[in-house]
């Protein structure tokens, strides 16, 4: 059965960039969200076992999504993909139980490294 994968970013290009960087033949069913609110709705609907999450977004940002996931007790595995590359941003999302952090711009190599690290592919 394919893994329900949610990609959340306000930029169309960034979402495409992530989709393009997914490993070949990875059995996933992709849902797209353009802000945190949409992402939470998708997660509640069971479409987000895995989440690739941007931080800086309008309406509801990535930090708030991580908090909401914890609060609502979802089992979502979140990998943050962000342009905010300050060490402090990294430690903040890790404290909010993100699985890992990838610096933008994302590419195939970086993404598959992280996925391999956690045995996800």
């Amino acid at each position, binding site marked *: 059965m394919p893994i329900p994968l949610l990609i959340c970013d306000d*930029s169309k*290009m960034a979402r495409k960039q992530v989709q393009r960087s997914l490993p070949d033949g990875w059995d996933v069913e992709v849902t797209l969200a353009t802000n945190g609110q949409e992402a939470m709705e998708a997660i509640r609907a069971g479409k987000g076992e895995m989440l690739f999450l941007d931080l800086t977004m309008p309406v509801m940002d990535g930090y708030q999504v991580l908090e909401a996931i914890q609060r609502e007790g979802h089992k979502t595995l979140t990998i943050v993909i962000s342009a905010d*590359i*300050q060490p*402090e941003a990294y430690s903040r999302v890790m404290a909010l139980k993100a699985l890992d952090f990838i610096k933008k*711009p994302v590419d195939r190599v970086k993404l598959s490294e992280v996925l391999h690290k956690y045995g996800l592919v």
Partner: protein
Amino acid sequence: MSNALTFNEDQRDCLQEICNVAMGQAGDSLARLLNVFINLSVPYIRLIKAEEVHQELRSLINAPQVSAVRQAFYSPQGNQGLCGESIVIFSDASFQELAHLMAFEGRELDARAEQELLLDISNVLNGACLNGIAQQLEEQLGYSAPSLIGQHIPVEQILDKEKLTWEHALSIKIGYTLENHAFQCDMLMLMPGAAISHLMSVLDQFLEDF
């Protein structure tokens, strides 16, 4: 240059994301320089005509008095490539905060050290942000030394002595705020029409590769 110089939706989205990434890099540089955490917000990008610059400045910058620094950037392709001037504007109120943060061993900064700080921070932001944009677009940029436009001047005076030879300006408002400090600086990239046309074609190419 035609008045039809506007970004389509894809170009805008693409530039926005490129600026996001570049801003992230610039924010990281500033954070390392100041040893503080920088709160990033979504950059506000607009393409304006030169004659709208003053109005744009007034609406962007919500401060009675500011200090401003200019720095030119240029490409090895000359004025056919990415080139123009970047203006970094600090509100006076926020700069005092910053000067406080940077004061060595509690000593207040003297006027020269204050100017140096303005120039250094502008240089770091311009370098990091513009290099970030250029790298993603696989372009190269060089920079002139930054120079002071003025300190403690009203917003209207930032460009009032200048004869604007730019037809269009790409206005990128990047609000860097420091946690627990009132600090905001804004960046305005002014480019001649040819450079903006060039930017558009590079964006199109970038989008085609998708």
